[in-house]
């Protein structure tokens, strides 16, 4: 399975068999996990995927994959380092931090002169106006999480609709 496209350079570790079992020596493991974080972020950013795609954990060419236990270690480390976030069973990859996303979205809103108005979350992640933006297509749970974080800074206010899945939620930016 060749998921790395030509433009994304495959890191040498991905073909290195010991990259897949978690290394027992702490110093080596730290380096290994750092490489996994970078590989995961590069892949998800390149393919614009928000939720972890487990295809990255496997390299059919060398018949190696991260075991379920190893995947948990890698994803836990990703989250501990602020490059991932868990929501129940789902893990989202943060190739930009929550703060960076908040800043980007708030910046776009300000530029368009939309502060003070109410926008739906849908407009932000899938609206015609946001199509070229880096946050276009963002998973709605992640988006509300980013907005909630902005809310703590007083820069936004999330408005819940009737459904719990945020599909009809809105936001007002300040």
């Amino acid at each position: 399975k060749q998921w790395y496209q030509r433009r994304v350079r495959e890191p040498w570790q991905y073909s290195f068999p010991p990259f897949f079992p978690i290394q027992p020596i702490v110093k080596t493991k730290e380096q290994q996990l750092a490489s996994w974080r970078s590989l995961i972020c590069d892949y998800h950013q390149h393919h614009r995927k928000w939720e972890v795609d487990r295809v990255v954990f496997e390299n059919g060419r060398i018949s190696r994959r991260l075991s379920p236990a190893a995947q948990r270690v890698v994803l836990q480390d990703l989250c501990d380092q602020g490059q991932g976030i868990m929501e129940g069973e789902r893990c989202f990859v943060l190739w930009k931090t929550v703060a960076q996303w908040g800043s980007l979205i708030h910046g776009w809103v300000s530029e368009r002169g939309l502060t003070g108005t109410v926008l739906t979350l849908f407009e932000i992640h899938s609206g015609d106006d946001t199509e070229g933006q880096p946050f276009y297509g963002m998973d709605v749970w992640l988006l509300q999480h980013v907005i909630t974080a902005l809310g703590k800074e007083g820069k936004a206010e999330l408005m819940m609709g009737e459904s719990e899945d945020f599909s009809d939620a809105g936001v007002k930016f300040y």
Partner: protein
Amino acid sequence: AVVSTQSTGCSKIGVDPLASSKGFWAQLLGVGDFYYELGVQIVEVCLATRPTNGGLITVEELCAKLGKSSGKTRKDVQSDDIGRAIAKLSVLGDGFKIVKAGKQQLVQSVPGELSMDHTTALDVASKYGGQLTIEELERMGWPELRIKSTLDNLLDQSMLWVDEVNSTYWVPALFK
């Protein structure tokens, strides 16, 4: 008098002794700008790669990485240039030396001596694209404790990684 004769000699064959810091006079007089500069670049590459290879890098890989960095002199870097630059670096203290593994040369950039057993293990790994198995060391007549001690030592320094799937060890520096 000697200088002027030599200068004449140089100009006869079309070499400007002062223009090339790699030339005859540079070596004789120790005007090693090229080698000191190269030494600095070698240190940078070694430090950058040390987390993954434990402080061992083949001269081949080093040349390739140096070739990518800026500078018009970089494409001239040969492996004996590396050797000369390392010799200058080692004057500054422990931590940079050349180690042989089979047909390859490695630059070790961490202090301490690699024992004969370590270099033998690296030798074996170099024959198999960086792969090292216990069987190979057993085949050389090494007792279990000696094997374990050598492997543990190299693992501790991050010069060796382990693939538990088939109990194989790998030297990242020698991996192709």
